[in-house]
């Protein structure tokens, strides 16, 4: 019951899509894949914006569409919040009226948020009187998200809300998205082709390629599966959920624990016991057979080689098991041969850098 189900097929002359997705009824699911893989089409089909066949869509037990029974709610009767890639704001209305547009069309008993709440959540109070044409890209997207939330949706669909924004604007919005993740009790489906966004936001991950689902599962697991393209290339890395266990005020460091091991991070001002999502990139991990001393590297963890896979000419991606956590290390073929690494080899992972995602 407590899940999102979406099954449909699309046949265009030059593109076809066939998916059958069962997604968690809470948290952020990222639809990830290269452009043209059908991510946006999936989102549009959920909202009833795309004509599909053999369709079955239900959200947390409520059936929106079932072609077998000839049932299909038109878009305006589906309780979705939709954030378009370009915002889709009404240029002829002020920000305030954009926000009110959807809210006023929801019957009062069904409203679960107030305008004030969404305005605060997205920090757009100063923008209310302005016309969309005068907003920056980041501001537009925040307004667009607020507008989508104002209809008290049963699901929030976001189509690459950060695409087309520069790094600065992205960082302006990401904190709001993370707040959504923490505050919302509804499922969020988030379309992206940027791995860094996915790593930061996604709990669940659906990997699409040429209109097919390649993998669907927990984001942490999928990122280190060597059979998937995510774990290859320059930007591959592992996601780790770690718990803050203390701070070192003298050296401005924070200690986090996972799988019985500890890591030092640059000081991160959160209370002990808090969970952090951190990312360790494969290129920042090197391997030694013996535990090194006399090294500048702070974080050295005992690990076992769990899998190896070629990763481009002369390169090998190695999966390291640290307790029940998997890390990635990208090594040269030469090193792998020199160290005689095979599955089961006990090693030490030296971690040069850790990014705190949230």
């Amino acid at each position, binding site marked *: 019951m407590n899940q999102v189900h979406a099954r449909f097929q699309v046949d265009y002359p030059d593109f076809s899509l066939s998916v059958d997705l069962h997604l968690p009824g809470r948290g952020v699911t990222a639809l990830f894949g290269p452009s043209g893989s059908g991510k946006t089409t999936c989102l549009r089909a959920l*909202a009833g*914006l795309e004509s599909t066949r053999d369709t079955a869509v239900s959200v947390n037990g409520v059936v929106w569409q079932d072609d077998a029974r000839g049932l299909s709610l038109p878009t305006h009767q589906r309780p979705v919040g*939709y954030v378009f890639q370009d915002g*889709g704001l*009404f240029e*002829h209305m002020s920000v305030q009226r954009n926000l009110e*547009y*959807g809210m006023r*069309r929801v019957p009062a008993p069904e409203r679960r948020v107030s305008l004030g709440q969404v305005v605060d959540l997205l920090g757009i109070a100063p923008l209310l009187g302005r016309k969309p044409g005068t907003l920056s890209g980041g501001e537009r997207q925040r307004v667009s998200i607020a507008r*989508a939330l104002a209809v008290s949706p049963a699901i929030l669909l976001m189509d690459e809300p950060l695409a087309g924004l520069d790094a600065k604007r992205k960082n302006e919005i990401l904190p709001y998205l993370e707040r959504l993740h923490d505050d919302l009790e509804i499922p969020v489906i988030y379309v992206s082709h940027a791995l860094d966004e996915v790593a930061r936001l996604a709990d669940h991950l659906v990997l699409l390629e040429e209109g097919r689902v390649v993998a669907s599962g927990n984001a942490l697991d999928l990122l280190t599966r060597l059979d998937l393209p995510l774990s290859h290339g320059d930007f591959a890395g592992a996601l780790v959920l770690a718990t803050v266990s203390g701070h070192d005020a003298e050296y401005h460091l924070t200690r986090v624990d996972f799988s019985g091991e500890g890591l030092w991070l640059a000081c991160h001002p959160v209370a002990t016991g808090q969970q952090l999502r951190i990312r360790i990139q494969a290129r920042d991990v090197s391997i030694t057979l013996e535990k090194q001393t006399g090294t500048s590297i702070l974080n050295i963890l005992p690990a076992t080689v769990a899998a190896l896979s070629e990763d481009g000419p002369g390169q090998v991606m190695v999966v390291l098991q640290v307790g029940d956590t998997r890390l990635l290390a990208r090594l040269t073929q030469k090193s792998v041969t020199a160290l005689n690494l095979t599955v089961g080899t006990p090693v030490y992972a030296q971690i040069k850098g850790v990014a705190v995602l949230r």
Partner: protein
Amino acid sequence: MIASDERSAILLTLQLSAVTTVILLVIGTIIAWWLARTRSRWKGPVGAVVALPLVLPPTVLGFYLLITLGPNGPVGQFTQAIGLGLLPFTFAGLVVGSVIYSLPFVVQPLQNAFEAIGERPLEAAATLRSSPLDRFFTVVLPMAKSGYLSAAVLGFAHTMGEFGVVLMLGGNIPGKTRVISVQIYNHVEALEYAQAHRLAGGMLLFSFLVLLAMYTLNPTGRRS
């Protein structure tokens, strides 16, 4: 100051243009909306038919309307059968002729405006619980405002200046079908140049002011 038959021609012209424009805005909206949205293979042919009055000589159009709406024409037989009588030589007949004649001048600005809106605002509105009719009135109409202004002005002005069709279809009946343009023609043909100049000058000035107003008040209208 103004002779009574001139006054009645002016009043009649304004009346005809106003009625025609109102009808055209309704019909034009439907046609333009369809043309702007459809992927049907009939889009081309329908668009071409709508644009035909742009190229057909008005007297030719008038001649065929006269035959079609006449007692032996298909439309004439239909209007007689349903008790409307015959349309030629009546104000209603002029309205029918003018609607057809000025159709492209209303459809094209509207179609441009609708196409400029694109799908996105409509999709956004749909995800915000807005029904199709609701979307039309709250999104399409306000966004196509300048298109509607252009369409109304062009439709009105073009109907005012229409000549060939009303000449053919109207029968030149004072107070009923004799509009300004026909009156001007009458003056010219009767070599009454002074009266012709007065009417023509007035019409020129009026049309200029209307178009000037449109272009000054509505700078975006030109772009769309």
